[in-house]
């Protein structure tokens, strides 16, 4: 079966020898939601710019919708929709004018343009704001319009570059619902970059983790977590609990982890939660609460790179557009 996106050895080098993308391989199946996860500056947006034909690669090949991104740029653009990192909108135009312009440039006939514009405005919840200038839209409204514009010509493949960055939880949730609906009802393939672990975990069928321009891990979120597969046990002490004693017991089951609530240990396979409870009981140590935390994608990132993704701050990627 032909892949919706097929990437082999893709490289993008910027001035000064900076390798924003340093040779990546990936495949995305039709109808799949692929989460591309990584910190700022990891190479996510540069990859999206190359796959959407906005930036030629320095080396490597990629096919999107069966079309080569270098040799068949116009065919790729007809196949895809994209909402890039910043909601690129004209503050002087209304939402409706944006959609009509987008549809017109995609060659949609006038009669269908009006119908499709109304349909998209309804779908993203902007019908009432359709004739207001974008300058008065909230961040969430701009993002929703951005998504509607990306979907205007019914693309088979959708690129979303950090679509929920800066959104409030309600807007984020609404956008997630729409992405899931697109996959479920329309079979749209979604390539989603994000720096939010939860987003990748909730939405993506498979996740690729990129760091310093290289993919360091790839698989379903469940498989990736199972691969490093060690849950964490966290104890909240009582006033009587002796911290040293608690740490000594926990230390027998794995590596101690930072914890704001008390003491935590990532289990190393020498025992499970029941063994920890028995050890505490036999040592007559009482705790206020005991929590079992399943591994997260952050644990995967930590295991693969030695760093935590949460709170990670790296320099931004070089500007993808040429100088």
């Amino acid at each position: 079966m032909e892949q919706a996106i097929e990437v082999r050895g893709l490289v993008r080098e910027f001035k000064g020898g900076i390798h924003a993308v340093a040779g990546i391989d990936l495949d995305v199946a039709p109808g799949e939601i692929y989460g591309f996860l990584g910190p700022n500056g990891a190479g996510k947006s540069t990859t999206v710019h190359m796959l959407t034909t906005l930036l030629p690669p320095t080396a490597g090949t990629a096919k999107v919708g069966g079309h080569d991104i270098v040799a068949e740029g116009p065919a790729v653009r007809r196949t895809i929709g994209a909402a890039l990192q910043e909601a690129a909108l004209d503050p002087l135009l209304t939402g409706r004018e944006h959609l009509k312009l987008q549809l017109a440039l995609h060659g949609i006939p006038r009669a269908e343009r009006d119908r499709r514009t109304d349909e998209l405005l309804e779908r993203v919840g902007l019908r009432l704001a359709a004739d207001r200038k974008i300058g008065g839209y909230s961040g969430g409204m701009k993002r929703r319009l951005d998504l509607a514009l990306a979907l205007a010509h019914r693309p088979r493949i959708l690129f979303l570059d950090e679509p929920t960055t800066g959104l409030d939880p309600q807007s984020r949730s609404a956008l997630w619902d729409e992405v899931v609906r697109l996959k479920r009802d329309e079979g749209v393939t979604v390539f989603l970059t994000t720096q939010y672990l939860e987003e990748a975990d909730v939405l993506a069928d498979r996740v690729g983790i990129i760091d310093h321009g290289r993919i360091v891990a790839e698989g379903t979120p469940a498989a990736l977590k199972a691969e490093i597969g060690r849950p964490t046990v966290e104890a909240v002490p009582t006033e009587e609990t002796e911290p040293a004693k608690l740490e000594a017991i926990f230390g027998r089951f794995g590596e101690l982890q930072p914890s704001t609530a008390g003491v935590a240990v990532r289990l190393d396979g020498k025992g499970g939660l029941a063994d920890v409870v028995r050890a505490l009981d036999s040592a007559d140590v009482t705790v206020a609460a005991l929590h079992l935390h399943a591994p997260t994608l952050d644990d995967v990132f930590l295991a693969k790179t030695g760093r935590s993704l949460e709170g990670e701050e790296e320099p931004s990627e070089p500007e993808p557009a040429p100088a």
Partner: protein
Amino acid sequence: MSLGSQILHLARRSVIRTLRQPANWITPLIFPLALMAVNSGGLQAATSLPGFPTDSFVAFFLAFPFIQGALFSTVNAGVDLARDIQTGFLNRLALTPMQSTALLVGHLGGVIVMGFVQAIWYLAVGLAIGVRIEAGVLGTVVLLVLAVLIVTAFGSFGALAALRTGSTEAVHSLFPVFFVFLFISSMNLPRNLIETDWFQVAASANPVSYLIEAIRSLVIQGWNEEALALGFAIAIGLSIVGLTLSSLSLRTRLART
């Protein structure tokens, strides 16, 4: 979608943007005429100079608003294009099947429409205050064609600056430069009556002088083939150079495959 339709849609957007920024159309409509009123009042005595080609300084000076108005709309258009680059809107357009040519011509199309409206306005005000177009109705049509060509020429350089720099500030900084060209020209006096040698040399070397003189000739002389030929040749030449350089810059700016 045909290239023509793409151009029409982008030109329409350009006009809408301009109309929704009142400062972008009120200033070019008012300021050049205000300056014309001030200069005409103060410099009417210049018409007494031996060899001055008309006894109406307003008629002599009417060419000025056409050029200054073109400068205003050019800078405004360049700023709009630079803003599209800064906001990423250009990338959004680049993700559609839009042809690069459509972007440039569509953008300039909006500028040209605004330039045409301005030209009609300047002409109407001129006629209302008693200026007579010596070249008649056909000359008026030629004047409007030349005005549109001048806007195209200047607009292409505004677009070039935007595409080269991607910066609204850089485009804004062009305005004083354009103004220097305008003021060191034959806008206030015929070149043969300018007595300061360096100024006369500079005005003679300045292409803006010939654009002014072509428009002026239609207003105060009638049909002056030499002035018109020079004016049209310069306007067309500048348009070709500006559009060619802008197209090349657009190709670099839109690095899409």
